[in-house]
């Protein structure tokens, strides 16, 4: 019994050892997926997330300039000056998805009330509190004198005007606090923030739009890859040989498959977004033209890429392995599983090489942020270009295939 079982164990072992595809699926894909997820989730504790923040200084005071400089220099944020250096520029950056959140310095940071405004997209729920915390850290560490001045200014009206001596002491105190900050000693701070969600925001709706897009491209890639595998069946059965011996060749076959797969992807997307509209009120019908265009480009991309990738494979097994590999990796890196803004900056950059990132971004822009067509032209161009490139590869490869 033992020897017989060992004989079968050996059969299975040799089968795995000699099947490179199975080996890759078994031992290469799991650690790769692990690495992607570990690098994403290790960043979601808040310690390592580096948000992209657009800043505008409407106050234009020495203290506000110091704050801008400090935030821009902060290693914990990827801050940049918003176009136009005004609140509208910051709102635009957040609405179009160029920034995860925005900071507008409305008045001198030492002034009473809420001189700082955080602008955020509710679909990136953690972005606003994280930005606030980062800016507060910067204030506490690098501008404690401003914080103290603000506190003293708030206290003075309540206690009556400070005497000349008290005013000198307060000024000394501000200097000391500034020196303490430089020396790394503890310093006082205070809440001075206001928050604003971008226009059109509806609690939870952005997240729904995000996941509707993420699931759409995930399944578009999955079904397109499965459908494109029929190219391999046609090679194996000799249908390709039959057609290549004729006048028409494989061109109509490849194009016919492309049209079908793209239509299938569109139908899937329609099913997902109609559900999102009915259940969560995702505004599909009120943005129908932009949604339809995004869906068409996403479908063209998924179908073209699937055909291109499959056409470059030599066997069905190879195509099956590569498609499974790509579907998982692209979905993980492209943000179909975890929002990209939570990923490390390098992974976010790599994510731009996936259709997932562009599809999700486009759907969010048109359905959630109401960002207008200008914000999605680039996504559409990237998706359409990738899809047509894949189609061209499949078209050209089909002419020269050998069984």
């Amino acid at each position, binding site marked *: 019994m033992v020897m017989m079982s060992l004989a079968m164990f050996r059969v299975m072992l040799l089968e795995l050892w000699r099947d490179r595809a199975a080996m890759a699926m078994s031992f290469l894909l799991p650690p790769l997926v692990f690495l992607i997820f570990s690098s994403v989730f290790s960043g979601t504790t808040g310690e390592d997330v580096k948000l992209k923040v657009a800043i505008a200084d409407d106050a234009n005071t020495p203290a506000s300039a110091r704050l801008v400089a400090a935030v821009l220099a902060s290693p914990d944020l990827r801050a940049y000056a918003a176009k136009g250096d005004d609140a509208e520029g910051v709102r635009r950056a957040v609405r179009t998805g160029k920034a995860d959140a925005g900071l507008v310095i409305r008045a001198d940071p030492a002034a009473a009330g809420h001189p700082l405004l955080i602008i955020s997209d509710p679909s990136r729920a953690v972005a606003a509190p994280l930005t606030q915390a980062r800016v507060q850290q910067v204030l506490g560490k690098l501008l404690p004198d401003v914080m103290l001045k603000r506190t003293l200014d708030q206290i003075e009206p309540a206690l009556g005007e400070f005497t000349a001596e008290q005013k000198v002491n307060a000024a000394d105190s501000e200097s000391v606090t500034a020196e303490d900050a430089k020396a790394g000693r503890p310093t006082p701070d205070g809440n001075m923030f206001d928050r604003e969600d971008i226009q059109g925001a509806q609690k939870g709706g952005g997240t729904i739009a995000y996941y509707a897009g993420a699931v759409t491209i995930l399944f578009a890639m999955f079904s397109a890859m499965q459908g494109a595998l029929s190219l391999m069946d046609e090679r*194996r*059965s*000799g*249908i390709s*040989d*039959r*057609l*290549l*011996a*004729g*006048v*028409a*060749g494989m061109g*109509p*076959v490849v194009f016919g498959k492309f049209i079908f797969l793209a239509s299938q992807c569109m139908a899937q997307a329609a099913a997902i977004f109609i559900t999102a509209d009915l259940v969560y009120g995702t505004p599909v019908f009120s943005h129908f033209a932009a949604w339809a265009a995004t869906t068409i480009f996403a479908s063209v991309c998924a179908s073209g890429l699937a055909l291109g990738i499959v056409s470059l494979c030599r066997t069905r097994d190879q195509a099956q392995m590569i498609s499974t590999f790509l579907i998982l990796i692209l979905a993980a890196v492209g943000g179909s599983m975890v929002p990209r803004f939570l990923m490390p900056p390098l992974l976010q950059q790599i994510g731009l090489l996936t259709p997932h990132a562009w599809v999700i971004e486009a759907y969010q822009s048109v359905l959630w942020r109401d960002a207008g067509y200008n914000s999605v032209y680039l996504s559409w161009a990237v998706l359409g270009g990738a899809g047509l490139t894949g189609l061209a590869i499949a078209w050209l490869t089909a002419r020269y295939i050998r069984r």
Partner: protein
Amino acid sequence: MSHPPILTVSGAKHAFVTRQVLRGVDLSVSAGEIYALLGPNGAGKTTLLRAICGRLRLKEGEVRLAGQDPWSVPAARAGLGLVPQDLALYPHMTVRENLQTFARLSLVKGPEIEATITRAMALTRTADRAHVPVKHLSGGYQRRVNIAAAILHEPKVLILDEPTVGVDVDAREAVDNVIRGLRDIGVAVLLTTHDLEQADGLADRVGFMREGRMMLEGSPRDLITHAFGEDMEILVHLVQEPDTGGEIRLAAEGLNKSSGNLWVKLDPGGYAAAGKLDTRLRKLGLTPREIRVRQPSLQNLFTLIADRKVAI
């Protein structure tokens, strides 16, 4: 040959990197003729077919299909139909649905499609299964539908790559009849097969390829007569397998072991020689169960060529 060749291959040479697979092959097929291309695996048959189908550009030599090069003039391939070795059909679709699909992909015009399908099904005798999914058909029917899908655009030249591989004798006969029917309406048929019996009974001419060369070409009867003259094949089926001594005695009678207890020899004496052989074997204690006499076949010729016993 009553018609001029519609398909000609002249001096075809081709190599994959350093491996020479075609070494100067000439071939021609006329309208209304069945030409069987024979040869062992690796002889260069598939490469030659690929060149004829315009899928491969020869290093030297030329292919002409109705006077045109199928590689550089794709329109030339309109007159070509290919029946691949495997079942090049969509198994989940019915016969008619498959034929509709391949008619469209063969550029048959819309209004002509139904008439074309009816004609192809009639020629291949598949009309009675028109609405059956291909996967539910018997092997013989599947093979005939495979041919039907290749003749929808009424090609002048039909190429069949191992058209009956894996089917039983009855199914093979049905396929052979379809091929004969196509020949009779003027189609030039070029087929490759390992089934020498099929080639013998079906082909007007055969060509033996080996190591990239056409070793022998002609009508099966002419080739056999040329190789064997007046010889007849005598097959001796013994009651039991002989021991070593028996094998030596059989060899002394000029018999060669074919398989098990079947022994074969070529003898111009025919039936008379068989009678004498029966008597001698019984005296030697080697009792025949059956002795048959028949004309030598392509199989005998193929064996001789394989053993390099025939001067080319």
